[in-house]
């Protein structure tokens, strides 16, 4: 099984996301890595390597999501689908307070929980970025870095 993604498709996914993680919104300028392309529905669940099933994700979001499609809502304890950046709108499911990401829906809360989006070091980083006006969107001259 291979996750091979052609360079042209990678470029499309990155540009479509404006080089920011589609889960936690952190821009790849502030990473030493390029954000990775991730399958919303993993290949092992029958997901395809097509633009409609690909998202741009930072290292921690990508890592914690793994191949999962659902997790438990930390409030209700119910099995809940994760936020899907392709079919859903970020601001319907999350809102920002400083660098803190708040879940507005069951999917939002579940995604924050599974992807550990408010883990201390990640939260501190986003707060530091936000304090300098670099989060959620960096200044224009840094956006294509």
């Amino acid at each position, binding site marked *: *099984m291979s*996750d091979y993604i052609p360079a042209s498709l990678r470029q499309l996914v990155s540009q479509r996301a404006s080089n920011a993680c589609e889960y936690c919104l952190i821009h790849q*300028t*502030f*990473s*030493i*890595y*390029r954000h*990775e392309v991730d*399958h919303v529905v*993993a290949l*092992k669940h029958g997901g395809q390597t097509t633009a409609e099933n690909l998202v741009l994700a930072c*290292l*921690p979001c*990508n*890592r914690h999501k*793994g*191949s999962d499609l659902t997790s438990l809502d930390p409030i209700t304890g119910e099995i809940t689908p994760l936020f899907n950046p392709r079919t859903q709108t970020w601001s319907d499911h999350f809102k920002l307070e400083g660098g803190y990401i708040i879940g507005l829906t069951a999917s939002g809360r579940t995604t924050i929980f599974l992807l550990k989006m408010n883990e201390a*070091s*990640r939260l501190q*980083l986003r707060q*530091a*970025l936000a304090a*300098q006006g*670099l989060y959620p969107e960096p200044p224009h001259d*840094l956006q294509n*870095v």
Partner: protein
Amino acid sequence: MAQITIDIPDDLAQQLAPFQNQFSSLFTQLIAPTLLGQPTQNPSTPDHNLISTSGTYQEILDFLISRPTSEQIIHFKVSNASQNRLQTLLQENREASLTAAEIAELDLYEQLDTLIAFLKIRAYTTLNTAPKN
């Protein structure tokens, strides 16, 4: 010998003050082996993990030692080889087939990323508060 300057909180500095003259050897004994992955947890593939981990780590160390400008810090990215290694680990992570050593390697990559991210913010702030000619 290369010198590294790091910013630490004042309260931590106070606690560490008694050990001041031991920093260099403490760093070598405690931190470097952990970060470099020398005591690998998977004896079957020690060389592979050692080499790949050291690659990314060495790259970042070499970069920091080169006295980079703020501009260079903001634009710093690891090499394609290091990026490809990360990609491989994330793919194995999706297949839930990471060894303990590889999990430690991913942990290290995340920590390094956080460290340099804060440096990038610092560099950006420095550039933007510098007097313009």
